């Protein structure tokens, strides 16, 4: 009498098998699996297309600028002042002015921004005061540059009495770039694992020792990224320097890297480009294009140096 029960069980197994759809063994294609594969490859092509779409305009712009600017590009173009009411000559004076502005604004904004971010991320307690500061930082980075320009005019040029000068313009640019540097640095610091800090505290390191020995060395590449982004912004903005230190035209001694003083007014590439393309009649066609490509090239050069620095620092990172 055991056999009925036994056969009963053995019958159930093929029955369960039969419940599966025809041909649904593991590696056989079903309509569903074909559909999945189709959408998988479709997704990949869509993403690829978007990426190409992103790069194409950049290459087109670069190519077009280079093509238009080619006749005028030479070392002389970089090293001579604009001449004959900016209808001839080179761009030495605005080029040097832009370098001064970018360099000085970063020299001012970087230490303040990085140290403030260290405070906010490493020391500050999570209370209403800290949250208020963070809210302010986030909102400040969204303020239009022309508003920064007015602030710079009021605070540095008029109130502090610096007058329109490279210093006032750089301070204005520094105020503009500061919130983004703070936000970027804070991001980089908070990506350093907390366990590193705790291990360091546990061997009797103070907070500052921990920051110097463990946190900053591991965050430095991220911090640099935040600063690199600001180079191009500081070089490209026209509004903040418009009221605070940039001039329409100024001739300086050609080839002299120290031609500008801190309290001089200066020319700047971004403003020069605006002037010769809209304000001055009969400018030779290639001149604005040449200026644009130099502005772009200068930014790329500074970025390249920072990226190299970052690669070197990252290769020394051992985790």
């Amino acid at each position, binding site marked *: 009498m055991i056999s009925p029960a036994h056969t009963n069980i053995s019958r159930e197994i093929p029955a369960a098998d039969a419940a599966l759809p025809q041909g649904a063994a593991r590696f056989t294609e079903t309509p569903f699996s074909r559909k999945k594969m189709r959408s998988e490859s479709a997704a990949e092509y869509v993403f690829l297309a978007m990426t190409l779409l992103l790069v194409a305009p950049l290459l087109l712009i670069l190519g077009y600028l280079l093509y238009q600017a080619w006749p005028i590009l030479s070392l002389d173009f970089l090293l001579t002042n604009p001449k004959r009411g900016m209808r001839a000559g080179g761009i030495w004076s605005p080029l040097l002015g832009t370098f001064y502005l970018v360099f000085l604004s970063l020299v001012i904004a970087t230490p303040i921004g990085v140290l403030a971010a260290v405070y906010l991320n490493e020391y500050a*307690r*999570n209370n209403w005061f800290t949250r208020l500061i963070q809210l302010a930082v986030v909102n400040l980075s969204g303020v239009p540059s022309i508003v920064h320009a007015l602030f710079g005019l009021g605070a540095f040029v008029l109130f502090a009495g610096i007058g329109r000068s490279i210093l006032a313009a750089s301070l204005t640019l520094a105020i503009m770039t500061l919130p983004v540097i703070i936000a970027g640095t804070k991001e980089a610091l908070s990506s350093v694992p907390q*366990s*590193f*800090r*705790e*291990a*360091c*505290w*546990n*061997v*009797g*390191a*103070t907070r500052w*020792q921990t920051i110097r*020995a*463990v946190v900053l*060395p*591991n965050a430095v590449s991220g911090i640099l990224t935040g600063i690199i982004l600001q180079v191009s912004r500081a070089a490209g903005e026209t509004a903040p320097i418009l009221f605070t230190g940039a001039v329409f035209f100024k001739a300086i001694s050609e080839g002299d890297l120290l031609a500008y003083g801190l309290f001089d007014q200066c020319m700047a590439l971004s403003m020069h480009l605006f002037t010769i393309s809209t304000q001055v009649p009969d400018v030779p066609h290639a001149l604005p294009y040449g200026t644009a490509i130099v502005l772009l090239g200068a930014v790329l050069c500074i970025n390249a140096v920072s990226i190299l620095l970052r690669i070197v620092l990252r290769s020394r*990172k*051992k*985790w």
Partner: protein
Amino acid sequence: MAEEPANPSAPAVVFCGFSVWFGEKQALQDIQLSACRGQRLALIGAAGSGKSTLLRSLNRSNDMIPGYRYQGSILLDDRDIHDPRIDVAALRRRVGLVGTPAAVLPGSIFDNVALALKMAGEQSKQRIFEKVQNGLMKVQIWDRVKDRLQESAAGLTTSMILQLSLARTLVLEPEVLLLDEPGAGLDHQVVTMLEDLLEDLKETHTILMATNDLKQAARASDRTAFFQCGSLVECGPTRLLFTRPQSEMTCNFITERF
């Protein structure tokens, strides 16, 4: 921190009515507990019973956690460790914590240990090297790492990371050694090494060890304290606690009927 030598029989660490909150949640409740020099105290209890919190309170690691609040006091050689005049960094050098999972710092194997000495102000490269070597020998990985001291420590195994972080703590010559679940996920040899080392160290150190492994607690401790839900249920000589527990809860826990 040079003070008059403490009475060797007096308890080195005393918790007096010590309670801890993280935000609204109470993590430790009115703990009365003491640990003496020359004794290994094991803390047992289910996960979340407050063992780690107790250890971390003792070197003030919890200070950095937002929402941390305490009541009562902890005495280390009769001095309240929350005394505002106390140098927290010096306290942490006297009270070494090996956390879980054992932390590995970015940098080379050598730097991982040398960092502790550098932070303590040691400048002589010669002395740093000697102490690092000594520390790595104590935890018995010197032979395995001596040829790759400059390699990144990130590639080490879990066991070696624990040994490394133990070495990092020991080079500072702490008086109190806190171990948070040593042995979790480690190979047998390392656990044996660790327990032998604790046996040697107990003459000169006060050792507190939180563990999830009841066998380890039974093997490698002189006294055991059982925690449940942030309260100390029972504390006594290990052999006594494991053979004749006073409390029903302890009995349930050690017979793993939890």
